[in-house]
Every structure is written in C-alpha cells, then in structure tokens.
C-alpha cells in the first residue's frame, strides 16, 4: 500500500512538474514555515519585554517549541521534491527531529522552571510592578 501510494504521488509530482517548478505541497511547506516564523517573532518579543522569569518562560517554552516544529515540518515538505526512497528517508528523519523536540522542549522548560522555583525565584506580584527599580534590573 505504501509503495502504491508512493507511485501515485510520483505521477502527481511529474504532472505538476511539467507545468511549474513547485509541487503543491511545497506551498503548504512555505505557509507552515512562515507561520512558524511568526510564532518565533512572538517568542523573541516576549523574551525581551516580559518583566518576570516565569512570564519569559511562558513566552519561550510555548513559542519556541511550536515554531521549531512548524518550521521543521515546513522544510520537510519543501525538500520533498521527487518522491524517491531517499527523499522519504529525509522526510522521516526531519519528522524524527520534530518528534524529538516535541518531547524534549517541554521537558527542559519544566526542569529549568523547577530549578528556578527551588532557588526561591518568586513570581512577580502586583505590588512589585509599582516599583520600577526591581523590574528594570
């Protein structure tokens, strides 16, 4: 069944390749990569502008893992030009990185946050926001 679907996809790719240069799900790959870049923009803005370690962890932990997964999935689709065995192997490898980051990025965020919490790094409260000297440093 796998071989058969690969054959069908190769026929589709050849048909499209005669018309233009880009296979239609490379366009999906472009869209995924650009969406991941938008999420990473959110992460970097949050890392600069949030006042507290835990809020920065919130920005970095979520946006970083999601944007990495989206950009890698997008490039896994983009590099899939012909449907040969080598490009399937490449696709599976890149999706393996995506799976690895899906597991490990929340784990490392959790470990760092637990270390910070046991280090008595207290979250910012509302009364701390009125004192700019503590926030600025």
């Amino acid at each position, binding site marked *: 069944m796998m071989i058969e679907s690969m054959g069908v996809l190769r026929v589709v790719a050849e048909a499209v390749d005669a018309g233009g*240069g*880009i296979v239609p799900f*490379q366009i999906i790959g*472009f869209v995924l*990569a650009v969406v991941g*870049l938008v999420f*990473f*923009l959110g*992460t*970097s*803005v949050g*890392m*600069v502008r949030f006042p507290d*370690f835990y809020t*920065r*962890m919130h920005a*970095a932990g979520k946006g*970083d*893992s999601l944007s*990495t997964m989206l*950009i*890698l999935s997008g*490039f896994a689709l*983009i*590099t899939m030009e012909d449907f040969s065995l*080598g490009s399937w*192997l*490449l696709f599976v*490898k*890149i999706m*393996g*990185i995506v799976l*690895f*980051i899906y597991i*490990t*990025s929340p*784990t*490392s*965020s959790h*470990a*760092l*946050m*637990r*270390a*910070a919490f*046991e*280090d*008595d*790094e207290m979250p910012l409260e509302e009364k701390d926001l009125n004192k700019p000297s503590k926030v600025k*440093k």
Partner: protein
Amino acid sequence: MIDWFAIIMGSTLFLLMIPMVYRIWVGPTPFDRMLAVNVIGTKTAVLLVIIGTLFDRVDMFVDFAIAYALLNFVSAIVVSRYLNRTISLREMEEREKAKGAKV
C-alpha cells in the same frame, strides 16, 4: 525560488535570535540566560536544516541537526540540575539555621 526562500528564512531567523543575545547579556537570573541559550540552540538546529536546503545536502545536515538538538536538551537538563542542587542545599542549610534560631 526555494533558494531565495531559504535565504530569507535563515536570515530572518538569525535576526530574531538577536533579542535572545540581549537576554543573555542583561538577564537578571542565571535561569534567564539558560533559557535564552536553550532557545538559541533549538533554533540553531532549525537553521542547520535551512542551510542544508540551501546547499542541496539536507541528508548530511539533518544528522548534524539531530546531534545538535540532542546536545541542547542534555545541556539544559544538566545545567538546571546543577543550579538546582548547589543553590538549593545552601538555602536549605540557611533555612535550617533560621528555624533553629527562632525555636
């Protein structure tokens, strides 16, 4: 088309890493610095795949990206354990002393 897309993606990713360098520079706690290093390391794995797309050698660069992601995860875990253990023990002793003085 794909080459230009990879160039634009990679340079934008590199430009968006500069705020992380700012956070490493001024970060008040060591955990902030470690978090920014972690984000930069994850994004470097992505950048390696993009560079591989640019050179048409993704099959080689994907292995580098796997190794980089693995190393990044291990370094984050090790540093968080290290900071946790050293500082937490000292704090615990101080807390024990304070409690003994109170009682």
